């Protein structure tokens, strides 16, 4: 084994590596970015707080104590509202409230009675949106712990305060209802970005784009044909995901104009994004990695697999800048929750994003060589 040869080879690799800024970035900085991002999500940096709306009809010392204890936990931030009893469900629907606790009038009195008479209990109500299963299970467990502590302090452990769970929107929604639209958005994003990257980097490297320049085909004809293919592919994959949702999970999915518009917009949005990425990377390998750096964070930060509320506040703010967030929320609003106003709102945002990215991509990408 010749050390000289090994050293020469090593030095050549080192030089090649150091001269590629893209490789340097993706190899060194990108992992650091990911560690910081996911570390923040899963290790409590920038602590996550869940908002819990409290409606206190009792306004007693005990109810105030209960609310204060909840608020003192590191997980829950209470927001006390004054709402009429018969307007609670409407309030939840209108304000897209994920979870709400109602302390009924006479709560303190009921607790006192229950402490003496074991046949009675004092109830509080916990309204929750079942589609936000993960975050609500965390809040529910904290509320339970507080109630257990109160029971322990007041009666030595007897269940004098109980929690009534009440599902909002519809009892039919579960995690899959949250997850499936996210998967549709995510899948379209993946196929469009990587499809666009392939067309703009591999085809360029292989001389296909140069070849096309010498044929009568125009750039707009070529792009249109590719967009058409992407659209068909997106509708097929969305259809497949929906069929699985309906057949396997017995989901009720609504197909409407907003959902279709969002899917079309998503195609143009992420195809344009792919074009932009390929404008700034030279080779296929870097393009693949660049695609990863765009899609990977969006997969986790844009509410595909879990709700934004589970993330630290600053990441929730970042999510608002990610187009996939609006795609996911729009698909959920249109397909699952039937919130037309929200569906229109998210559709408009997706279409604006689509116009921006697609037009920018068209302007900035070129077939001609320098």
């Amino acid at each position, binding site marked *: 084994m010749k050390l000289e040869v090994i050293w020469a080879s090593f030095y050549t690799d080192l030089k090649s590596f150091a001269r590629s800024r893209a490789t340097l970035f993706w190899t060194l900085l990108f992992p650091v970015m990911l560690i910081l991002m996911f570390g923040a999500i899963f290790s409590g940096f920038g602590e996550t707080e869940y908002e819990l709306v409290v409606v206190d009809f009792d306004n007693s010392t005990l109810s105030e104590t209960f609310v204060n204890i909840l608020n003192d936990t590191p997980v829950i931030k209470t927001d006390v509202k004054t709402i009429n009893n018969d307007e609670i469900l409407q309030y939840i629907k209108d304000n897209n409230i994920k979870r709400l606790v109602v302390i009924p009038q006479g709560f303190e009195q009921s607790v006192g009675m229950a402490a003496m008479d074991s046949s009675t209990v004092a109830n509080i109500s916990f309204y929750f949106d079942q589609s936000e299963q993960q975050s609500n299970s965390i809040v529910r467990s904290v509320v339970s712990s507080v109630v257990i502590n109160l029971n322990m302090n007041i009666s030595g452990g007897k269940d004098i305060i109980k929690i009534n769970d009440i599902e909002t929107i519809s009892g039919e929604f579960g995690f899959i209802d949250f997850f499936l639209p996210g998967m549709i958005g995510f899948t379209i994003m993946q196929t469009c970005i990587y499809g666009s990257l392939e067309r703009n980097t591999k085809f360029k490297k292989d001389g*296909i784009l140069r070849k096309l320049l010498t044929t009568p085909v125009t750039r707009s004809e070529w792009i249109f044909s590719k967009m058409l293919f992407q659209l068909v592919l997106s509708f097929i994959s969305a259809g497949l995901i929906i069929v699985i949702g309906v057949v396997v999970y017995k989901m009720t999915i609504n197909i409407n104009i907003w959902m279709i518009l969002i899917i079309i917009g998503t195609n143009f949005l992420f195809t344009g994004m792919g074009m932009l990425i390929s404008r700034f990377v030279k080779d296929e390998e870097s393009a693949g990695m660049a695609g990863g750096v765009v899609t990977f964070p969006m997969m986790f930060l844009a509410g595909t697999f879990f709700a934004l509320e589970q993330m630290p506040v600053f990441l929730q703010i970042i999510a608002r800048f990610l187009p996939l967030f609006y795609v996911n929320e729009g698909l959920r609003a249109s397909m699952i929750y039937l919130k037309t106003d929200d569906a229109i709102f998210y559709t408009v945002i997706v279409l604006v994003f689509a116009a921006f990215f697609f037009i920018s991509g068209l302007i900035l990408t070129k077939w001609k060589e320098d």
Partner: protein
Amino acid sequence: MITKKVECPKCKQIFTSSGNPGDTVRTPCPSCGLTGRVIFEKTFSSNISSENIAIEVSNLRKEYGSLVAVNNISFSVKKGEVFAFLGPNGAGKTTTVEMIESIRQPTAGSIKILGKDISTSFVDVKEKIGVLPQEFRSFERLTVRETLEFFSKLFKKRANIDEIINAMDLKDKENTLYINLSGGLKQRVGVAISLVNDPEIVFLDEPTTGLDPKARREVWEVIADLKNKGKTVFLTTHYMEEAEYLADSITIIYKGDIIARGSLEELISKYGKGHILHIKNCKTKEAVDVLRDNGFNVNKEHNGDIAVKIDYKERVLEVLSILRHEAVDYDSIDIRRSNLEEVFLQLTGARLSEEE
């Protein structure tokens, strides 16, 4: 040296500037001091009548910042000929052909294909040309037939796909995926793609680079067949054997400049040095000195081989006589005429193969 009258774009003063053909001279205006570039066009005489010109390139120039990749070159390609654009890697061949194919934008100059200026009429011209770009790879997951059918559909005029498949000897492979073809077959498919619109001119940019000798030969036969069918072939290559085997006309480009053009015979008679006598495995060390002492131009080659340049065949006997007289021991000798390698060496002082 050429002297040119130029007009200052600023003060309109007319003054003279001098330079060699192909030079770009920075010249200050004697009146206002504004410095500008004066281009002295390099021209090679062309005896092609205008109706027989397939491609006409005039003062074509390409700059990348301060780098001049193509330096005001002019040449013409005759209809029906195989035109070899020969030069080492980095000489400016692909830049030139890609400007002709409208893939790259020239910095200056004009290009006419079949009499039409491509800066204004390239859309029409596209129907009449077929192009195999350098290092072209087609869609991996299409079969040969599907590939040809796809590209055929991009043109108004369409050749018969079956005829192309047969002519390119691809019948056995017509249903094979492109990704599963060998390098030689891929290049044959590339040439076949360039024929789907039955073009008048076929551009083949380094069609045999990276191929083994057998595959290279196969592609040569395909190109030779194109000529037989009356197509004009614009072939860029850095293989002198390829140009020697295929070309009717050879233009040599070196460092962005055209340094020679003509038929193989013309180039060799003009720039070559008669014949080369190869003495194989010469075992007598003094042989080189002895031959040099007798006025011969001698090069030592590998494995003890010696190459002796001789101006005319009759001097072979003189060499043999010296070898016999000095009792030089060798395995064999052969004689061949000078080739493009010697032409290139004569013109540039470098070997074409060394420049790659």
